């Protein structure tokens, strides 16, 4: 039981997928123009992550390792389609706000990475726990980034104005540059608070990239040479 709890909390703080592992940056930056959008994106991703983790853990002995990449993609894409339909039916405003980024959950490195690194080696229950933990970590990070950008950029919190006339919103935080900037400040803060211990990776690169086995890190080397 203690182990399971550890698996669960691991993803929330120690290995937070966005703020520590630096995975899934595209949806992180694109959907955090508001706290509510970030939260919605986080929950949608979490649903796909938990379901695909469980199914892949169930199927891990059946899927031959040579075709595992396409097999995982099919499983993940199936769940993404379900989430897409549910959002269209029950939360059309969120669906419109997230738009293109809902189908793009398929290529979110977090989901593929967890399938490859965790679900394909662990039991169903553990994989579900891992999915929930990572999902909560992702949701938390997106909500925090969205909260900051929304508060600075449009002077609202979850859509409600909090300062009235006293606060002049800085539009740039809602636009693309603000996304990069807020994420940079948050990571720098984590670095500063933990004295550089939390974020071990100093560059965004091949660690944690799900395709590392296929490419062997060539993309990052000087004029990669193929055998």
């Amino acid at each position, binding site marked *: 039981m203690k182990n399971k709890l550890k698996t669960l909390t691991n993803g929330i703080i120690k290995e937070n997928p966005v703020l520590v592992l*630096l995975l899934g*940056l*595209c*949806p992180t*930056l*694109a959907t955090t123009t508001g706290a509510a959008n970030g939260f919605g994106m986080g929950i949608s991703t979490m649903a796909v992550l938990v379901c695909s983790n469980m199914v892949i853990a169930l199927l891990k002995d059946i899927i031959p390792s040579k075709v595992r*990449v*396409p097999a995982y*993609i*099919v499983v993940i*894409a*199936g769940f*993404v*389609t379900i989430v*897409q*339909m549910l959002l269209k039916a029950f939360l059309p405003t969120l669906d419109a706000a997230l*738009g*293109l980024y809902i*189908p*793009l959950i*398929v*290529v979110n*490195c977090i989901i*593929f990475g967890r399938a490859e690194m965790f679900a394909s080696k662990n039991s169903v229950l553990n994989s579900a726990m891992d999915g929930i933990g990572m999902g909560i970590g992702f949701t938390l990070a997106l909500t925090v980034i969205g909260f900051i950008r929304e508060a600075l950029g449009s002077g609202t919190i979850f859509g409600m104005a909090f300062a009235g006339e006293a606060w002049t919103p800085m539009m*740039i935080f809602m*636009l*693309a*540059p*603000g*996304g*990069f*900037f807020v*994420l*940079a*400040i948050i*990571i*720098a*803060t984590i*670095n*500063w608070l933990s004295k*550089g211990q939390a*974020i071990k*990776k*100093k*560059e*965004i*690169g*091949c660690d944690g*990239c*799900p*395709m590392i086995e*296929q*490419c062997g890190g060539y*993309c*990052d*080397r*000087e*004029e*990669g040479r*193929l055998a």
Partner: protein
Amino acid sequence: MKELIVIMMTVILVDNFVLSQFLGICPFLGVSKKMDSAKGMGIAVTFVMVIATAVTWPIQKYLLERYDVEYLQTLVFILIIASLVQLVEVTLKKYIPPLYKSLGIYLPLITTNCAVLGVTIMNIDEEYTYLQSLSNTLGAGLGFLLAMVLFSGVRKRLEECTMIPEAFRGIPITLVSASLLSVAFMGFGGIVEGIFL
């Protein structure tokens, strides 16, 4: 013709995929350390994007829409892209070895690049015609290449810089420079309308 150029220039400069739509951030930050690899990755992505659009657009119009199974779009598109990448890799290896040598290493990474799936779905969402889709895709790829090459130049300077505060070293300062590059690209707003319309 003018319309196609407008679509292409808009997606290169104003709605740049990386800097204003946040598609393809992982390779943008991961593979931009050296000018050569940035160029290689950019060209490989453009190449795969154009082929992927050329295949997915007809499939959407003549297969998925005709038989009312548009909900399979995500699944079908990602599978097409994954198999296309494999196919391109094998074909290049066999018939054009020099090109394979320079682009081959980037190909396996492209399947999970959200810019490729993103552009194919965007073409459908925007209801572009076949030619418009291809021009949008070519623009998206060139915009990605432009952002990659520009940013690799910026990072070269960053690496030589020793005055960066401890907490900002590495990833944070890279993101701050990306943010500044993105501000610079905001300056292109309205330029396309100004020139072509």
